[in-house]
């Protein structure tokens, strides 16, 4: 076993300094971890999964990149493609590698690179092992949708299952299913908790409770005076037209789920593969919705911890400067006209908002009191932040907490343009009239439900020619990319085994905007 558990040796060197050298060592890592833990748990009151820190090489980091950050992953050519691309960019120096990757699992695994300096390792530990870790464990979306205890085992299962399928059915056949499933990955997510099916026992208990209630409240007058039909406030379940138990009700927005359950021609192993991809999509869905918050939380936490270490004399001035250097490049936000600009940096926005919430709680201005009457000046920054980390996602977090101060700092402005118009209209800038508009617009940018096309299965003519109908509800006239859509539809048709049609309708008006050609399965 490559594990090198180091006996706890918590003696700081050099009069309180955690480490003096630039190179990291296991002792220093261990000491630093303990010191950070004391601040994170003891002072900030974070609540984390047990930590596991793994030291890896650059090549292993590239590996992890290729398999979307999971420590193990089934085999697929697309991961090879991403590896080849990342490797080339890295070798050419066009792109550096992340300092760490952290996995939402219990124990929470943080990968740290072997060529980080010790100060960087401290930063990474604070950032990943405590910041992200706390967020994973406490955010409502993660709690509701992911099972940190089980994910590693599940990936192990998925990997070996798909390998077995390849042996049995051939790599080509498996690849076809995976290709199709990956194309639909964004549409393999349950956005709402499914209604729990009532078990027979529960149904019986409920029926009994009702009966008892009726007996207890029996009133002879009612029985004789009210006509029998009007007494029946609700039809009993048994009287509904019977529906086959395993028929997925339509419309269904989880296309992978629908295909897994309903596609007439799939083999059981193909359904299982769809299920694996679907589970994976579901596992990553919360991360997609909480980029700003997750990074903001981790960045804020590492910033607090590193400053505290420096205050306590455990981090040297040199180490602090090194930390500040990389911290400030992480939260750098280029302006829109800068050639480095590539959208809003989630680290920058997240960190700024977290710091701003702290400021509002501790030193509010009059404006803050107007905008955030419930938290301004409450003096409990950590409590407020922890509440936000637990209960919001990017969209609602921005809608709730983006303050005029932050908008002014970023000098945010809103641009609008109709389809095909040659010019943008500057609709709002960071002034009194614009704050609300900007805040709303920015929150919408982070609303996954608006950014991902809303596509549903609306009909599957099971008795007739079995044509599957997908329906895209286009918001504000935003249609699908035609070529891409045709390619995905081909995949859907291959899984479904019968023709697939797609229609794009206006979400508000309901009129048909575009009808895609019917696609028949191939291969």
């Amino acid at each position, binding site marked *: 076993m490559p*594990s090198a558990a180091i006996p706890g040796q918590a003696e700081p060197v050099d009069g309180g300094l955690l480490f003096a050298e630039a190179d990291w060592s296991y002792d220093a890592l261990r000491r630093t971890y303990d010191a950070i833990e004391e601040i994170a748990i003891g002072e900030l009151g974070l609540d984390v999964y047990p*930590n596991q820190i793994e*030291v890896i090489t650059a090549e292993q980091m590239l590996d992890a990149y290729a398999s979307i950050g999971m420590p193990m992953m089934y085999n697929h050519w697309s991961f090879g493609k991403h590896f080849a691309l990342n490797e080339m960019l890295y070798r050419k120096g066009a792109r550096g590698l992340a300092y760490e990757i952290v996995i939402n699992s219990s124990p929470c695994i943080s990968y740290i690179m072997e060529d980080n300096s010790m100060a960087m390792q401290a930063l990474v530990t604070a950032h990943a092992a405590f910041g992200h870790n706390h967020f994973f464990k406490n955010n409502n979306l993660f709690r509701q949708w992911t099972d940190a205890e089980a994910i590693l085992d599940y990936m192990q299962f998925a990997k070996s299952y798909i390998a077995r399928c390849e042996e049995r059915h051939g790599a080509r056949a498996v690849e076809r299913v995976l290709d199709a499933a990956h194309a639909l990955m964004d549409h393999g997510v349950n956005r709402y908790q499914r209604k729990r099916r009532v078990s027979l026992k529960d149904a019986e208990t409920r029926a009994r409770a009702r009966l008892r209630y009726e007996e207890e409240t029996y009133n002879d007058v009612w029985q004789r005076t009210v006509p029998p039909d009007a007494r029946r406030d609700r039809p009993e379940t048994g009287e509904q037209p019977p529906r086959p138990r395993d028929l997925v009700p339509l419309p269904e927005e989880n296309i992978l789920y629908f295909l897994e359950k309903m596609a007439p021609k799939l083999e059981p192993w193909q359904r299982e593969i769809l299920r694996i991809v679907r589970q994976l999509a579901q596992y990553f869905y919360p991360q997609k919705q909480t980029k700003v918050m997750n990074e903001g939380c981790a960045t804020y936490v590492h910033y607090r911890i590193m400053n505290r270490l420096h205050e306590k004399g455990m981090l040297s001035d040199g180490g602090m400067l090194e930390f500040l250097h990389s911290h400030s490049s992480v939260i750098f936000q280029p302006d829109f006209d800068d050639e480095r600009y590539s959208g809003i940096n989630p680290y920058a926005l997240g960190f700024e908002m977290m710091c701003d919430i702290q400021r509002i709680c501790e030193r509010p201005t009059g404006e803050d009191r107007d905008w955030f009457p419930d938290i301004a000046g409450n003096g409990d920054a950590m409590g407020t932040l922890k509440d936000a980390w637990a209960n919001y996602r990017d969209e609602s977090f921005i809608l709730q907490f983006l303050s005029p101060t932050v908008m002014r700092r970023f000098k945010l402005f809103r641009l609008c343009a109709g389809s095909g118009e040659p010019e943008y209209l500057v609709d709002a800038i960071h002034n009194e009239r614009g704050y609300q508009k900007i805040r709303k617009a920015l929150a919408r940018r982070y609303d996954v439900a608006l950014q991902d096309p809303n596509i549903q299965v609306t009909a599957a003519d099971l008795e007739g020619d079995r044509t599957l109908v997908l329906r895209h509800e286009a918001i504000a006239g935003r249609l699908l990319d035609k070529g891409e859509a045709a390619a995905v539809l081909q995949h859907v048709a291959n899984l479904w085994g019968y023709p697939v049609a797609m229609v794009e309708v206006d979400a508000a008006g309901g009129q048909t905007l575009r009808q895609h050609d019917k696609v028949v399965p191939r291969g």
Partner: protein
Amino acid sequence: MQIIDRRRNPQGKSLSNRQRFLRRAKRQITEAVRQASSERRIKDVADGERIVIPSDGLREPQFRHDPETGQQDGVVPGNKTFREGDRIPRPAKGGGRGAGRDGSPDGDGSDAFGFVLSREEFLDIFLEDLELPDLMKQTVGRSEHTTSERAGFAVNGSPTNINLLRTMRNSLSRRIALRRPSNDELEALRLEIAEAERTAPDSRRLDELRIRLGLLERRTREIPYLDPMDIRFNRYEAVPKPITQAVMFCLMDVSGSMSEAMKDLAKRFFMLLYLFIQRRYRHVEIVFIRHTHKAEEVDEDTFFYSRETGGTVVSTALVEMRRVVAERFPVADWNIYAAQASDGDNLTADGPEVAAMLARDILPITQYFAYVEVSGGVGELLKTDSNLWRTYAPFSTSHRNFAARRVADRGDIYPVFRELFTPESQHA
């Protein structure tokens, strides 16, 4: 908290993904590799390098919005001069959210996908499904080098070759089949007799036991523990050892009529041949023979870069080659390949001599002899056949291990090379 050092974990975790990716993109990669080989220097070609392939077939399609349609709406940082109600022109391409869209790093939306192939991967694809004609020495039957290889079992052989496992297995099954009593069984019976002798010396049971013992002992004697018919020997067969070394003769005309461009073409051809042969044999030697009106063996640099003046007598090169073979490369031990490059000039009087030497001395001992006639440009191809071509032409049909091709342009080298080495069966 646990710190785990993963650095020692097996590397190349994504190797199988890479293989899948290469297989997936095979057609495009093959094309790109061929393209590259005609444009790049041979030396560079062999080193893995960046390959750009069209991304069709590698696309990972998703349902996504077409940025050209619908109402655009975005929030951007860094306002400097804009006021509410200002209008600014849209950037020419993309969704207008700054420069982020173009050159998107994951290859989405772009038509080309670039990555790096390793040297091995490159050569695999580059030389894929080419076969060396007469790969094995034809003289192999007479070769004195043989190795013994395991070839099953035999019922006779030398005692040192007894296969114990097989022998004992046979013995055991025979003993079970013939019900030879085991030692335990006999021992138990003897104990029982001893017991009976002590307790009831005259009983009938004791007699029965004794008779039974006698029977079993006889059986033991008559059915041997190990019978000659059980014995198996490892069988070895002498297999002629394939010759895993090859020598490649590069013959080139360096007289004044060969221009630098022609030499470059010739060099490319030799390089390809070298790469190719190297992949098939464990050990490859190269002999460079240059000739004008006299021939000599030289080192590589001299071969390609030094100039020599004189007439052109091709037979001298063949004589030199014959001499080197006789001196250093016994025909029985070496696979001999020869590649000759020339502009086709030869002393007219030398023609019959060349033909005779080729037929008598060279072709019988070479696995393959490839002649490449290089010319300065396409125009020259239209000329009448050269002296040497006329001399060599008959051999192409009469000898299977001789081939002649013309090359006029860098781009031709690889196709010609492929044509030479594609196995017959694959010619449509």
